[in-house]
């Protein structure tokens, strides 16, 4: 009962959190490039403007698919906070991302299609990590829901150092930051125009944007999960991780997809796999 309210709260508050985070991100990025940057609330203005614009759909399927993308992103967070099994949450998270790939693939444009292919690659690169992360958390705490992990009396994070480091690498993909922003780009000059969002406009692009806000909030919740005993510490840890992402985003060029796939899989396999394996070996 209580947990359902948390889920509902997430659906309402996560976009505010994600949008504000995007606003801070844009200010900080601008300052790193010695620019002033847009107002803090610019992401909200942008989405507001997008919603007012006329929407052109290349393929009528794209609309429902993108709506599905937003709904499943929101659902991922709601289920997580609502007390569903963590492994199940990781699968819903992947499903939500898959809707975006399908929507982009449905547009009959080469840029969009190649972007969708690349998104599929980064999805392949990042999904094993989330499953391993959930497995690691469940293994350490012995429980399998968000609320139970938070109620677990010991810190989870110290036993998952490999997963913490891998989190930083995979978050670069999920937050669409350079060097791993191969499927879309927050910065428009790239080989795929805007990758998988090339053929989305108006309302549809607003959906993608809002879904991304949910995505940031979910990643934040995952961080809180790792720092289970105190959510303020989890928030601070997420803030530090995000700041690092922004710094790396402004200090590297975009990598090619082979490097993305290789480095994320290597990180997942060595750091996460090693971490989880060690838990089983040392554990009992």
């Amino acid at each position, binding site marked *: 009962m209580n947990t359902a309210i948390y889920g509902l709260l997430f659906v309402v508050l996560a976009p505010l959190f994600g949008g504000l985070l995007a606003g801070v991100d844009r200010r900080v990025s601008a*300052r*790193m*490039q*010695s*620019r*002033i940057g847009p107002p803090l609330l610019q992401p909200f203005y942008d989405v507001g403007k997008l919603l007012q614009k006329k929407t052109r759909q290349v393929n009528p399927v794209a609309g429902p698919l993108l709506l599905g993308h937003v709904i499943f992103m929101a659902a991922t967070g709601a289920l997580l906070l609502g007390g569903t099994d963590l492994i199940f949450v990781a699968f819903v998270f992947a499903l939500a991302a898959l809707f975006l790939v399908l929507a982009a693939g449905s547009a009959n444009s080469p840029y969009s299609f190649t972007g969708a292919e690349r998104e599929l690659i980064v999805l392949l690169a990042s999904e094993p990590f989330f499953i391993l992360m959930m497995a690691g958390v469940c293994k350490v705490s012995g429980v399998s829901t968000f609320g139970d992990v938070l109620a677990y009396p010991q810190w989870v994070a110290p036993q998952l150092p490999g997963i913490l480091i891998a989190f930083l690498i995979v978050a670069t993909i999920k937050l669409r930051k350079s060097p791993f922003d191969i499927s879309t780009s927050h910065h428009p000059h790239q080989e795929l125009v805007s990758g998988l969002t090339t053929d989305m406009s108006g309302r549809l692009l607003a959906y993608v944007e809002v879904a991304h806000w949910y995505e940031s909030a979910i990643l934040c919740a995952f961080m809180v999960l790792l720092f289970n005993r105190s959510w303020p510490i989890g928030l601070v840890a997420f803030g530090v991780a995000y700041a690092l992402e922004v*710094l*790396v985003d402004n200090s*590297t060029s975009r990598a090619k997809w082979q490097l993305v796939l290789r480095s994320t899989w290597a990180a997942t396999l060595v750091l996460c796999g090693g971490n989880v394996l060690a838990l089983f070996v040392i554990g009992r």
Partner: protein
Amino acid sequence: MANPLTLPMVRRSLRNLVARPATRKYPYEIRPSFGGARGKIEFDVTTCNYCMLCMRRCPAEAIRVSREDRIWSIEHLRCIACNVCVEVCSKKSLSMSNQPRKPQTPADGVDGQRPGHEEWHLAAPDTTGAPCPDAETPAAKA
């Protein structure tokens, strides 16, 4: 050679974070023009003798002069501010201001005039050359 662990831009990014940004808050903060900048052609109708030299030499065909109708006009959107008309004008009626034109939208055109179009008439031979009240002149704008 590139060491995979050094990211030289990290230090720059961090330093920029505390340094003053290089951008200016245009349009609230406008940098004054440099003295010799070529901004916009100014026309003094009182001294013009309609010799048409500026029209003949204008490479962009932006200036139109009609001796019969006593009209001197310029399309600012065609003008390339090359300064040739100013150089050839024997009466010194033309000058180059270092202030660029203000941005205009189609709504800024006055009385059916296109934006960027300026026209001066000498209504009757005896008048000393007040700008035509209909025309969009610098005076009318101000």
